[in-house]
C-alpha cells in the first residue's frame, strides 16, 4: 500500500502543497465564489479576473489537505494568462483525468504539473479534494463572463 501512497503523493504535489502558487485573495476580480466539500470540510474562496477574454488572474484562499491545496496551485499555473476558451478545455481535461478511475492517460502537453494527479484518480475519496478548486474556478469564471456581458 505504500506504493499506492507514493502514487498519490507525487513529489510535484508535495512541492505545490508546501509552496502554493498564486495563493491569497487579490483585488481585481469580477466574480468570487466560496465552495466547500461538505464531507470533509475543505473550503476555498476563489476570485476570477477576466480581461478581454483572457484569464487575467485567479486568486484564492483555501483550507484543506495537501491534494486540494496543490490542486489549486496547479490550477493557477495552468489557467492564468490563457484565453478563457483554452482554460476551459484544460479544466475539462483535468476533470476527465480525475473521473477516469486511473484509466485515463494524462497529456503532459495540456496538463503540465497536473499529470501528477493521475494517482489521485485511484483514490475515490480524494477525487473531490483535487476537484474543489477546479469546480470553484469554473463556477466563478461563468459568473465573471456573465458580468462582462
Amino acid at each position, binding site marked *: *500500500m505504500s506504493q499506492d501512497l507514493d502514487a498519490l503523493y507525487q513529489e510535484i504535489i508535495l512541492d505545490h502543497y508546501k509552496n502554493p502558487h498564486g495563493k491569497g485573495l487579490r483585488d481585481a476580480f469580477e466574480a468570487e465564489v466560496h465552495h466547500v466539500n461538505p464531507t*470533509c*470540510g475543505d473550503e476555498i474562496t476563489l476570485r476570477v479576473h477576466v480581461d478581454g477574454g483572457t484569464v487575467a488572474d485567479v486568486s484564492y484562499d483555501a483550507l484543506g489537505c*495537501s491534494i486540494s491545496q496543490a490542486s489549486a496551485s496547479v490550477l493557477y499555473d495552468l489557467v492564468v494568462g490563457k484565453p478563457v476558451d483554452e482554460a476551459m478545455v484544460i479544466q475539462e481535461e483535468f476533470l476527465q483525468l480525475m473521473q477516469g478511475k486511473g484509466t485515463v492517460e494524462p497529456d503532459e502537453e495540456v496538463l503540465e504539473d497536473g499529470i501528477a494527479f493521475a494517482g489521485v484518480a485511484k483514490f475515490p475519496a480524494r477525487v473531490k479534494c483535487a476537484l474543489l478548486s477546479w469546480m470553484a474556478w469554473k463556477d466563478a469564471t461563468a459568473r465573471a463572463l456573465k458580468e462582462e456581458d
Partner: protein
Amino acid sequence: MTQLTGLLPELEIVRKDFPILERTFDGDLPLVYLDSANTSQKPQIVIDAMVDHLERHNANIARAMHHLGAEATEAFENGRDTTARFIGAPDRDEVIFTKNASEALNLVANTLAWARPSTGSGTDLSIGEGDEVVITELEHHSNIVPWQLLTERKGAKLRWFGLTDDGQLDLSNIDELINERTKVVSLAWVSNMLGTILPIAAIARRAHQVGAVVVVDASQAAPQLPIDLAAMPVEERPDFLAFTGHKTVGPTGIGVLWGRRELLEQLPPFLGGGEMIATVRMEASTYAGIPHKFEAGTPPIAEAVGLGAALEYLAHIGLDAIHAHEQAITGYALRGLQTVKGLKVLGPLDPALRGGAISFELDGVHPHDVAQVLDSRGIAVRAGHHCAKPAHARFGVQASTRMSSYLYTTPGEIDALIEGLEYTRSYFKLD
C-alpha cells in the same frame, strides 16, 4: 505487550468474537481499527442472530397471523426488552425504535414543534415566540440542526453553552442560560470530537427547576458508560435519551429513543402510517399507545434482533469493565500521542474526564493526509470535522484527525498508531 491496569482480562478472547479484526491488507498488513466512535465492529453473535432470524424466523411483525409472524414479533419485542434493560428504562414501553440517533433527536424536535399548548395538568410542551432552546457548542450536527429547524419554525431562540479552553462545558452562566423561558435543554453525554463527558445530572437538575425538558444524546455514551435511568434521581434524569445501534456493536439502521411515558403520551405522533394507529376512518384517526404510536410502518426487525444480541453481549462483558478498559486505553493513547512532535490533542487530557474518542492536530500535515498515510499502514482513523464543525471552529481548527478505541482495542494498536504518526511526519519531511 504493555501491561496496563483496567484492560479487559480476556481481551484476546473478546477480539476473537469480532471476525473483522482478522482482516489484513496486501496479504499481511493487519487491520488496526481505531474508528469505533464512527461505527463499532460487530461480534459474531450479532451477525449470527441476524442471519438466524432471516433464515428461520422472518416475517412481518404484529400483523401476520401465523407461526413466523408470532416468532418475529416476539424476537422484535425481545430486542426492546433487552434495550430497556441496557439503559435501565423505568418502563419498557418507553423505548422507541428509530432509524438512528439522528431520527430519534428529530422525532423529539419535530413532535415538540407540533405540540399544542397544554390545557390540562401536564407539562406545557408547546414552543413559541420568546421561548428558548439550549444546546452546547460541542454537539454533533444531529443535535444542532433539528433545534435550529425547530426554533426557526416557531420563532423561538436557540442558545448554547460555550466551551472552556480545555474542552469542558463553560457552566459559568448556567443560571442565566437556563431560565424561565427555557423549554428544552438538549446535550450530548459524551462529545464525539473532544471526548468530554458532560455533567448531565447538574444540567438536568437546573433545567428541571425551570420546567424545561431535557434531551440527552447518548450516542457516544451508550457504548462505553453504564446507564441506569431508573437509578437516577428523578430531578437529574433526562426526559429523553437517544443512541444508535451501530456504535454499540449492533447493526446500522436502528436507533433508540427512550422518553418519559407522560411526555411521550402527550406528544403528537411523528410519522403517520401502519402500526401507529388505533383506528382509521377517512375523516380522522386515533393513535396507538406508546411505543407503537411512534413506530409507523414496518420497523427494522432483523436490526432489532441484532441490537438485542449486541446489547446482551455488552452487558455480559459488563459496562463497568468496558468503561475501565476504555479509560486504560485512552490514558495510554493520550500519553503516547503527546510524545509525537507537533501533535496537539483537542479536549481534556485526563482520561477520567473523557470518553475514548481523541481528536488531534499534527502540525504541518492536514488530517486527511494523516488519515491517508495511516491507512496505507492498515490503521483506520477518521479525519475531518466529525460532524462537529462548531466545536472545531471554537478551537480555531477546520478539521482534525480522530482515533477512537473500544472494548477490542489493544495497547499494541495504540503503539502502531504512534509509530504511524511518526512515519507520517517523516513522509511529509517534517524535522
